[in-house]
C-alpha cells in the first residue's frame, strides 16, 4: 500500500483535494487548489451560534472547494454516504483494497492522533485513507507532517459522528482528471468569482463589509456582554483565524500564495502586486490575533483594547476592499 505521496498542508479540504488529484496525475499546489476552489471568504453571523458563540468564518462553506474544483475542471466526484456504519466501513475497505485512495469526512474529536487539546466536536475535517495494515488504516491527514495510522473503530466513530454537519460516512474521489488541462481559464474564473463575493455581496455580514460590520459590533461587546463573555468571543475569532487549520492569518497567506502562482502563470503584474498586498494584510490579521490573545491573557477590561482591535479590523477591511476590487478586473 505504498505509492501515495503525503504532503503537509495548511488546510484540510484543499490538502485532501490536492492529494487526491495529484494521485491521479493532476499535480496542483495546495494554494492553487484553494484558490481555484474559491476557498477564501469572510463572514460573521451573530445569530448562528456554536456553543453560544457567534460564527465567524474566514472561508467559504465546507465542501465548497471540492464542488468548485469539480465545476472549474469538469471533474466529477463520486460521493457516497452511508446509513449503516458497518457497511460504510466495508465500502471503505473495498476502495482501499482495490488501490483507490479516497477522501473521507470526519469529526476531529474521535481521531486519537490529534493532540488532546485540539479535540473538539468539529465534523468538517477531511483526510485521505489510502490503505490498511491489519486492523489499522493508513491515513494521509493534510494537517499532519507525516502519514498516520488509525484503528478501525476510531475511524468508524469519526466518520459517523453526530451533530452539526454530521459526515454520515462520506467518501469521495475524482472519477478521472483531465490530462494536462489549461488551468488558466479556471484561475481567471475563480479569481473573479472570489473577488465579487468579497466586495459585491449586498448584505452586511459577508465579505469585506462583514469585516467592518464585525469591527462595529466588537467595539460594543464589553458593555453588551460583560468583560468575560466579550473576551471569550474575541478568543473564538482568533481561534477561527489561526487555530482551525488556515495556513496562517485566516487563509490570507495561502490565498496570497495562490495569487503569486497565478500571477506567474498568467504573467500578470497586477496579480503579483495583489499577492504582496494581501500578504501585508495577512500580517495585520496576525497583529489582530496577537492583540486579541493579549486581551484574553491579561484580562484588562478597558474599552481601549477593543477600539484598537476594531481599528485593525477596519484597516483589514479597507485593504481587502481595495485588493479584491482590483482583482475583479485584473484578470
Amino acid at each position: 500500500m505504498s505509492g501515495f505521496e503525503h504532503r503537509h498542508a495548511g488546510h484540510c479540504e484543499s490538502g485532501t483535494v490536492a492529494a487526491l488529484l495529484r494521485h491521479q496525475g493532476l499535480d496542483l499546489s495546495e494554494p492553487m487548489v484553494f484558490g481555484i476552489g474559491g476557498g477564501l471568504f469572510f463572514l460573521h453571523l451573530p445569530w448562528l451560534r456554536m456553543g453560544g458563540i457567534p460564527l465567524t468564518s474566514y472561508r467559504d462553506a465546507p465542501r465548497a472547494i471540492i464542488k468548485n474544483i469539480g465545476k472549474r475542471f469538469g471533474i466529477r466526484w463520486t460521493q457516497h454516504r452511508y446509513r449503516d456504519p458497518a457497511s460504510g466501513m466495508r465500502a471503505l475497505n473495498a476502495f482501499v483494497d482495490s488501490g483507490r485512495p479516497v477522501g473521507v469526512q470526519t469529526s476531529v474529536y474521535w481521531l486519537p492522533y490529534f493532540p488532546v487539546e485540539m479535540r473538539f466536536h468539529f465534523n468538517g475535517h477531511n483526510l485521505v485513507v489510502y490503505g490498511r495494515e491489519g486492523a489499522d488504516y493508513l491515513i494521509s491527514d493534510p494537517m499532519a507532517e507525516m502519514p498516520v495510522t488509525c484503528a478501525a473503530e476510531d475511524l468508524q466513530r469519526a466518520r459517523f459522528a453526530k451533530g452539526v454537519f454530521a459526515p454520515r460516512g462520506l467518501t469521495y474521489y475524482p472519477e478521472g482528471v483531465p490530462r494536462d488541462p489549461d488551468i488558466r481559464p479556471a484561475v481567471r474564473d475563480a479569481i473573479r468569482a472570489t473577488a465579487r463575493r468579497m466586495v459585491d455581496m449586498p448584505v452586511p455580514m459577508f465579505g469585506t463589509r462583514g469585516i467592518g460590520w464585525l469591527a462595529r459590533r466588537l467595539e460594543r461587546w464589553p458593555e453588551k456582554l460583560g468583560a468575560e463573555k466579550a473576551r471569550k468571543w474575541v478568543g473564538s475569532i482568533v481561534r477561527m483565524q489561526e487555530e482551525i487549520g488556515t495556513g496562517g492569518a485566516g487563509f490570507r497567506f495561502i490565498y496570497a500564495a495562490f495569487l503569486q502562482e497565478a500571477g506567474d502563470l498568467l504573467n500578470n503584474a497586477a496579480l503579483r502586486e495583489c499577492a504582496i498586498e494581501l500578504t501585508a494584510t495577512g500580517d495585520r490579521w496576525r497583529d489582530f490575533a496577537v492583540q486579541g490573545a493579549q486581551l484574553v491573557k491579561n484580562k484588562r477590561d478597558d474599552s481601549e483594547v477593543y477600539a484598537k482591535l476594531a481599528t485593525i479590523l477596519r484597516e483589514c477591511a479597507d485593504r481587502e476592499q481595495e485588493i479584491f476590487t482590483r482583482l475583479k478586473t485584473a484578470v
Partner: protein
Amino acid sequence: MKTGDVPQDREQSFYSGHQRACYAVDEQGRYVVVGSLGWEPENIVNGQANDAVRAEIAVALGRARRGETSTLAYHMARRQMDSSMLAAYSGTWRLRVWWHLRPQVFCRLPDKVLQRYAEALQLPLAELRLLPAEDDCERL
C-alpha cells in the same frame, strides 16, 4: 509573514511536538510552506477554550455531587456534549436525555437504556453511575 518570522513557540504549545503548516515568504519573495511548532497567541486562545471546557465539567461535577443532576450530566460534559448531541449519538430524543439528567429518574433506568448511553459516550456501563473520587475536570 517572512519564513524567519514563522513562530516556533514550543513553550505551552498544544501541538505536542507536531508541526502546523504555515505559508510564509522566503528571501526571494516566494511563498513556501514552513512548519510551526506553536504560536503564543494561538496557545493562549486554545488554553482559553480548554479552560472553558474544564469549567463546564467542574460545574457539571459539582451539580452531580450535590444531587442536582444525575451522574449522566457529568459524563456528558466530559465528552464535551450537550443534551442534543448526546441524543443524536444515542439515537433518542433530546427531551428524553433531558429527562434522564434528573437523578431520581436516572437511578431507575434499565441497563438497556444505559447501554445506549455507554456506547454513545464510549464508557463502560458501570462507570455511568459513578463519579470520580477526585475532582477530575479533565475531558475524556
